[in-house]
Structure formats: structure tokens, C-alpha cells
């Protein structure tokens, strides 16, 4: 049982893990003697190895991690609250400790928790603040001075939240709840044969893989430059998951559909079709060669850092980066043999992918990314069996309007639905509950539908869908009665 195994596990060297502080996540590989920068703190992960996932650590002097003891609330004596903010005049002079004082405390090795306590005691207005304002003050200062991180196992929830918060551009602003809809609308589950075409850093692929749990098969379609799997590698999937993951180049889709495709037409250009890390992913080029070297934290870097682990080697068909480094260590001859072996393997898998597609019986199609969805849908739906779902994500609404129209014209699909979701986060606190003050402006748009046998579907479905039917009012009335 993969699920139950996942939780009690211990942190091991080479794992793909996620650092967590408050609501901020960062995916990192667990490596020894490697400086990590996260939320303006630097530290080494060495001491985390052997602890159970979910453990919270405090960063201590020298950047070493120590498991944190129970979190103590500030002593209640200092929590003497005012009744309102009437008498508080903010003149910026309420804190008696200066910046230099605080710096001195830090240099003395005083822990974050104690610094916060000192700040409270040296605030002239703290006692006059309302309890609410006091809590806010403490929380703010804690966040600033306490260096606490938790190490957790990656998951679709965590990685999709992380990417949306840190690098939305890399995943075409696909919000996590929209991804959640895709997985359900696409009916992703163990045993499926799925076609995935995405340029969302491999996040969508990873989510599909997680939901299929290694059962079934996935054909990833990829554009020029090869499939992107920076986010996929952050999931830390077992090697076995990659056995049934296939790739097929988009540029061969038409020839496959017109039955002119053969593996023989490929050899000279096989290099072009090598799956590779995203070329536009600047972070790869900027990465220092030595893993001991400190790496700069940047908000545009949330992808799995460092080199590939052993486990992932089988999947990483063309981590040229790694290969280049290896070529320096190994003999040139050996390198060529290795290259040939890999190329052979690659070709074998390509043939298998082509064969899988040719069966035209995929259980679903997921499209997400920077390409215009219409041509993708019109072609790739050919590989999907009838009565199966498909979902297309686009950051913009307009292309999906067009896609909808084209699909309707072509026929062979029913239940076409264009939608978006609104996501509201709430603050739930005694006597001060309300929706969060900022919310995401949009999570992108989805077009979903179900394939049907063409000859039947064309006439019937077209006619039925042509009726303008809004949600029946009677149904909603019933609902209202049930809940109100």
C-alpha cells in the first residue's frame, strides 16, 4: 500500500522533500553538506536525515537543524490587554529595543523565541493593545525572528500550492483547485491509459501519476524541446512509476494519424526528440556545478533542485547535464556505449508509445499549457476511446470559446462545459471570522467533455446540445429547501 507507506517514512539522503514554514513550501532534495536557503534562513539538512517526515526543526547556530520541542505560548503575565486602541498613538517610538540591540541579541545566539519575548517586554504600547492586537503583534514578530521549518513528503496538494504561490508563470497560472477539477473531470484513477499534453513544468503529469499510483499507462505528448518534468521530479515517485510512462513527440502526431508514421522516419532527428529538462528553465543553467556551493534563493526557483537521484535515473532519459558531468569521470568509449544503450531504449519506448496511441482507446485526454488548445484537441481526441472524458486547461477564456465551437462543429463530443472556479480562503478565529482579505483573481479556465462514437454522436448530441438549457430551476429550489 503506497499510501500508508508514504506517511510513516523517515527522511533519507537522496529523498525529494518539501520544506515548510507557515504556508510557504519549497521542494528540495535531501543532500548532505549542502547549504539550503529558505525564507531568508540558511541551513544544512544533514541532521534531518533519519527523522520521520513531518518533523519540525529549529535552525540553530551554524545552520544545523534541531528537532523542535513543544511550541510555548508567550507567558500569560505579559498578556495584559487593553480594551480598545483609543489611547494608542503610533509615533514609531513604542519599541525601546533598537535594530542594533536586536542584532546584538542574535549574535549572542539568543533563540528566536526569546527575542520575541524581549520585544514584547520592551514595547511601551503592548499592554495597551487589545488582545487581538497583541496576538497579531506576537505572530508578526514570531514569524520574523523564529527560524522554524518542517520537512514533509511532497504531494500534488503541496506542489501545486507551492508552484501557484512561487512560480505561477511556469505552470501557466494553473491554480491548485483548477488542477483538482481536472483530475476529477478527467476521471484519473488506477488502471487508466491516459494521454497528457502539458507545458506546466510537469506538474500536471505528476498529479496524474500520483492519482494513478503506478497502475495503468500514461503517454506524455511533448513539443519541440522535449517533455518538461521539473515538477514531476519533485514528487519523488518510485522508479516503477516510470516504467509505464511513455513519451511521444507532437510533431509526429499527424503522421501517426495519417498512418505514414514509422520509427524509420525518425533516426536522423532522434536528437531533436530527446526528452530534456525545460530549455527555458533558466535555473538549470544558473545552477552551480558543485553541489557543495551555496545556492541563491530566488522566488523563481521552486523546481526540484540539485541533480537527479539514482532512483530517478531511469526516467531521466536525457539529463544531458548529468551526462556531461559523468562523461568527465568515465572514459569516452564507455560514454558512447551508454549513449547508444539509452538511445536504443528511447527508441523502443517510442515505438511502444506509438503502438499505444494507434490503438485509439485511451481512457482520457488532459491538455494544459501554453499552446493554442484547438489544434491539440482536434488531433489528440482521435486517440481517445468513445465515452471517455477530456479536459483542457487554458489561462485565457477566449481560446476555449473557439475550441468549444470547433469541437461542436466537428462532433464526436458531448457534455461540453466551459467553466472556472472561485476559491475563497477564510480566516476562522473566535469573533473575527471572515474571508481572507486578498484572493486569487482567477485560476484559469477549463473546457471538459466526453467523447462519443462519432456517427451516432454527430446528429443526436448536436441536436440536444443546441437546446439552450440552463440549470433547471426546480432542481435548485429543491436544493434550497434541503439546506436552508
Amino acid at each position, binding site marked *: 500500500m503506497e499510501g500508508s507507506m508514504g506517511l510513516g517514512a523517515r527522511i533519507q539522503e537522496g529523498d525529494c522533500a518539501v520544506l515548510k514554514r507557515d504556508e510557504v513550501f519549497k521542494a528540495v532534495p535531501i543532500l548532505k553538506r549542502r547549504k539550503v536557503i529558505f525564507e531568508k534562513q540558511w541551513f544544512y539538512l544533514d541532521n534531518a536525515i533519519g527523522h520521520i517526515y513531518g518533523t519540525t526543526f529549529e535552525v540553530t547556530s551554524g545552520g544545523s537543524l534541531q528537532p523542535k520541542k513543544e511550541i510555548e505560548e508567550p507567558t500569560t503575565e505579559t498578556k495584559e490587554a487593553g480594551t480598545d486602541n483609543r489611547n494608542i498613538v503610533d509615533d514609531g517610538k513604542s519599541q525601546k529595543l533598537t535594530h542594533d540591540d536586536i542584532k546584538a541579541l542574535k549574535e549572542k545566539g539568543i533563540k528566536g523565541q526569546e527575542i520575541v519575548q524581549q520585544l514584547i517586554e520592551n514595547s511601551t504600547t503592548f499592554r495597551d493593545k487589545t488582545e487581538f492586537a497583541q496576538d497579531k503583534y506576537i505572530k508578526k514578530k514570531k514569524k520574523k525572528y523564529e527560524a522554524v521549518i518542517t520537512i514533509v513528503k511532497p504531494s500534488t496538494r503541496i506542489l501545486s500550492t507551492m508552484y501557484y504561490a512561487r512560480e505561477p508563470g511556469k505552470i501557466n497560472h494553473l491554480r491548485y483547485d483548477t488542477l483538482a477539477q481536472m483530475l476529477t473531470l478527467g476521471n484519473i484513477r488506477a488502471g487508466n491509459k491516459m494521454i497528457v499534453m502539458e507545458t506546466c513544468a510537469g506538474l500536471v503529469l505528476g498529479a496524474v501519476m500520483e492519482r494513478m499510483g503506478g497502475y495503468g499507462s500514461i503517454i506524455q505528448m511533448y513539443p519541440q524541446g522535449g517533455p518538461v518534468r521539473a515538477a514531476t521530479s519533485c514528487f519523488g515517485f518510485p522508479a516503477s512509476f516510470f516504467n509505464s510512462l511513455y513519451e511521444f513527440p507532437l510533431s509526429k502526431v499527424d503522421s501517426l494519424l495519417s498512418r505514414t508514421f514509422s520509427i524509420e522516419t525518425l533516426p536522423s532527428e532522434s536528437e531533436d526528440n530527446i526528452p530534456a529538462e525545460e530549455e527555458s528553465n533558466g535555473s538549470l543553467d544558473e545552477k552551480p556545478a558543485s553541489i557543495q556551493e551555496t545556492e541563491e534563493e530566488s522566488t523563481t526557483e521552486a523546481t526540484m533542485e540539485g541533480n537527479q537521484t539514482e532512483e530517478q535515473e531511469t526516467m531521466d532519459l536525457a539529463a544531458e547535464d548529468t551526462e556531461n558531468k559523468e562523461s568527465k569521470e568515465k572514459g569516452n568509449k564507455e560514454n558512447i556505449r551508454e549513449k547508444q544503450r539509452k538511445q536504443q531504449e528511447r527508441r523502443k519506448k517510442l515505438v511502444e508509445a506509438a503502438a499505444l496511441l494507434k490503438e485509439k482507446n485511451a481512457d482520457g485526454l488532459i491538455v494544459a499549457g501554453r499552446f493554442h488548445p484547438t489544434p491539440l484537441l482536434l488531433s489528440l481526441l482521435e486517440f481517445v476511446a468513445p465515452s471517455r472524458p477530456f479536459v483542457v486547461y487554458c489561462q485565457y477564456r477566449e481560446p476555449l470559446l473557439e475550441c468549444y465551437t470547433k469541437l461542436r462543429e466537428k462532433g464526436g463530443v458531448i457534455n461540453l462545459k466551459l467553466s472556472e472556479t472561485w476559491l475563497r480562503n*477564510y480566516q476562522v478565529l473566535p469573533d473575527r471570522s471572515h474571508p481572507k482579505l486578498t484572493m486569487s483573481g482567477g485560476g484559469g479556465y477549463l473546457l471538459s467533455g466526453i467523447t462519443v462514437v462519432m456517427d451516432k454522436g454527430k446528429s443526436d448530441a448536436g441536436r440536444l446540445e443546441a437546446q439552450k438549457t*440552463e440549470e433547471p430551476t426546480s432542481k435548485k429550489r429543491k436544493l434550497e429547501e434541503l439546506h436552508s
Partner: protein
Amino acid sequence: MSFVEYGDTIQEGDTAIVFLGHESMFPVKVQHGSKTQTKTQILYSTDISLITMMLELKPGSIVCESGTGSGSLSHAIIRTVAPTGHLYTVEFHQQRAEKAMEEFREHKVEHLVTVKNQDVCKNGFGVSNMADAVFLDIPSPWEAIGHAKSALKVEGGRFCSFSPCIEQVQRTCLALEEHGFTEINTLEILLRVYNVRTISLQIPDLGKAAEDNSNPGFDSSNQANQGVMCGSQQQGTAQFKSGVPLREMVGHTGYLTFATKSLS
């Protein structure tokens, strides 16, 4: 065709979806000589999607749920955790529990689910330190937080409670905090569906004179621009495709409160 795998042809005993046009479909059991029956009201698919992902469900997950209700979420959970996971579902109402069991048998997923007819607030889920995730959709979820905690694995796990009213959420959040849950987060998700329509808007007659440039209000480039008006423009109207929101949409189903049981 099973609820957890695809089949190629419709067979006796299958549940099929009857498609009656846009936005109107319902599941029916394929059975010779029986009239099709509609099912009871179900939890919204939009919520189910978010619940499934935020609970980190996947093949192999052990999940506890209460109440079973119409079984719509149960079926979604089973589909996700199959073939190696398991669902423990607890239903207070006897008739519903029996109906659910019957349906699970009918859909051939009974090996993936255990149904218990008891009060989760009093008697819990009947499992301890086994679950990866717990889901509650009951009137007083705060009374079941202790049981949820003990059902979850020692190493921790995910929790979700679905409640229509904010007062339930307030009490649940307090109880979660008291029981040491972390990452307590209340969300609400709403689906906005757009109808894709071809719209024609009339171009107003401003009495444009024959000699066009005599009009000081339009610069010369303007005439050219009007030709680019998106979509085709014929006989005084402009046509375009529009994504038109439905006049009414579901405005609320419930609040989703998620939390993590941390390693203690």
C-alpha cells in the same frame, strides 16, 4: 462496467449515464425491463475534486468518512483509493447505511469499503491509527474531532470537514486547534459555468453622412478600425462568440475545513 475500471460495452447491471442535453444528465442502472430511476441529491463534484486532492488521496490510501449520506463522496473516494486502499464509512441513519451497502455490492466495490451504522460522535470510526485521511460531513463535526485524530495514523494524516454553516466551521476549527491539528485552513469553492453563445449586437444608426470624414468626431483611422470588429459584421449587427455566465449558479454548498494531524 465496474465503478473502478472502464469496460467497452454496456452490460446488464451496469450503471450508465444518460445524457439528456447540456447540463442535464443522470446515472441509471442498466437493467432489462426496469424503469430508469433518478438518484438522490449528491455532494457537488466541484467540492469532491478539491476534497480528494487536499486530502492527498491516491491508490492505496486508507480513508475514514462519516456520514455516508447518499454515498456520492464514498464512490469518489473508492474510485481514487482502488485497487489497494480502503474506505471506512460510518452512517448514523440505519436506512441510509443499508442502502449504501447495497449500492457498494451492486457496483462491485464491497471489497474496498466497510460500512458501519453508528454515531461517529459517540463511537468513532471503529479503526485506530490506520487512516491516511478522515472526512466529516455531519451536523456537529466538532464532536468527532477526537475520534478523527485517533483514527489517523500516528505519523499523521489529513483531515477535512464539510459544513454548510459558518458556526459549524467556527466550532470545528476550535476543536481542531484544541486537538493539536495544524495547517487548519477553511476554503470555499464555487463553480462558474459559461454558456458559449453566438451573440449579435446591433450597430446603432448615428446617421453617418455619406462624406465620412466630414465628421470631426472620427479620425481617419477610425473607419479602418471598425472593420476589425471581432467576429463578422453584417447588416448593422456585430456577431461574436461569448462565454455567458448562467443566470443563476450554485452560490454555496459548504465550507471545507482542512487540517493536518502532525507527528506528535
